[in-house]
């Protein structure tokens, strides 16, 4: 199901030894993995397992105590842990995307849908109002929002629409990598299914790589190529999604999987 880019040789993101402590408590410890172009990596675990801390460290929102996050983008390999904040912010609005669980954290609630979608374009120099608007309309349609609502504010949207708007706002710049933190959390089951469908299509069409954090195994089953299972800040098991879910080796993964089956 993955569309690997044959032009790219080697991983797009190489994570090694990422560790983050909160005082004596471990946030996440010694996490390493490679992410390939077009690949979706799922990170699962209970709350407190360290998956959100790890996502924060990977995306530059938290500063890890140790480790490297090497990004191989348009400008060649760079360690995003040590890069200048200005460069990291630029990366954050061009080649990277971040989808928050709560759309309010990822949207400007006082700005129209069009302004929300257009912000990344304007932040990187777009100065043609008409073209910005056309692009915004196009993206609203791609995330299944009526283009006539371009001048409405997100507060007038339902939760599912807000989440789709957040996705459009992030993907408009054509990023290569998306970080997603429980993107379907807090939504009704039927809304979740529609959003997952949409995400799967977008990831495939855009050849997007993604790191997806969730506690919901159904979400990773649908979206993720590979899976890491975290417990107490450490990765206890990793592998191809189907393999890990159908034949869990670690006792904790077995518990996770079986608890899902009981639901």
């Amino acid at each position: 199901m993955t569309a690997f880019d044959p032009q790219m040789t080697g991983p797009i993101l190489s994570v090694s030894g990422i560790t983050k402590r909160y005082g004596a408590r471990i946030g996440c410890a010694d996490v390493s993995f490679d992410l390939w172009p077009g690949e979706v990596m799922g990170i699962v675990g209970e709350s407190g397992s360290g998956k959100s801390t790890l996502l924060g460290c990977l995306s530059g929102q938290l500063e890890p105590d140790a480790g490297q996050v090497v990004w191989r983008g348009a400008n060649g390999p760079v360690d995003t842990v040590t890069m200048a904040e200005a460069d990291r912010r630029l990366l954050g609005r061009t080649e990277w995307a971040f989808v928050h669980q709560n759309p309010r954290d990822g949207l400007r609630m006082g700005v129209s849908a069009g302004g929300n979608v257009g912000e990344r374009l304007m932040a990187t120099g777009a100065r043609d109002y008409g073209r910005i608007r056309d692009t915004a309309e196009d993206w609203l349609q791609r995330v299944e929002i009526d283009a006539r609502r371009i001048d409405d504010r997100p507060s007038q949207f339902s939760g599912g629409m807000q989440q789709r708007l957040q996705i459009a706002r992030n993907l408009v710049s054509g990023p290569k990598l998306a970080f997603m933190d429980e993107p379907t959390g807090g939504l009704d089951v039927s809304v979740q299914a529609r959003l997952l469908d949409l995400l799967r299509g977008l990831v495939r069409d855009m050849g997007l790589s993604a790191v997806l954090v969730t506690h919901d195994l159904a979400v990773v089953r649908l979206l993720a190529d590979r899976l890491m299972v975290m417990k107490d800040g450490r990765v206890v098991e990793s592998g191809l999604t189907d393999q890990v879910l159908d034949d869990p080796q670690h006792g904790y993964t077995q518990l996770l999987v079986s608890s899902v089956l009981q639901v």
Partner: protein
Amino acid sequence: MTDQAYNFAYLDEDTKRMIRRAILKGLAVPGYQVPFASREMPMPYGWGTGGVQVTAATLRPDDVLKVLDQGADDTTNAVSIRKFFQRTASVATTESTGGATVIQTRHRIPETPLTEDQILVYQVPIPEPMRFLEPRETETRRIHALADYGLMQVRLYEDIARHGEIATSYAYPVEVAGRYVMDPSPIPKFDNPKMSDCPAIQLFGAGREQRIYAVPPYTQVVSLDFDDHPFVASKAEHECAICGSGDSYLDEVITDDAGGRMFVCSDTDYCARRAEGGAA
């Protein structure tokens, strides 16, 4: 007559030196807001204390000072500030734009083009162009440091989306020397083009907010806009009822109870000179 109880131009020399350092830093980094330890002045914050401190640090005994507010030399606060410097620095004053070496202004740039021998000092109430988008100083300083100005453009986008045009008529944001986005002080956007490539030194003082910034001579100042919604330096589409000028900024004056009105130049010096010239 100088009031002997105070130092020349009121401020002590140490304070003036501190302000001059801030001015020089501002000139070296055009459009960057330099924090400075603004002093408490004997006039209220918000009434030009920043401009007064910059003027005080700039004045020499042989300077000729012009003070204008809303384009006029005779508005009450302009009178008050001019009196202050007459009293504390006993400098010569003038109402003539051409005859002044230092011009302190509130809300206008004179119509008469400025020269290399002149310093224009603006009074600034809110120096941060993004203050009403982002109230936190810690965050706006970061935005400036990283030149992360997308939010500013979003504000203009929202204006066009809602009103069909950029609905900012004064304090219209500009980009200085291709780097910092700057608040030009609450001048009407009609005056914005006069800032660019101007031969005079332009200094901006915000006393309450403790910031000084500057535009050096012959610096490019660009009003933010969109390619397909370009900046327009608009004004009332009339001619001055006194001097007949068709290209100066106009005040609208209500002349009677029946809604009668007329338009006259906001720059009283410019208008008077034209009226005299026409009569002669």
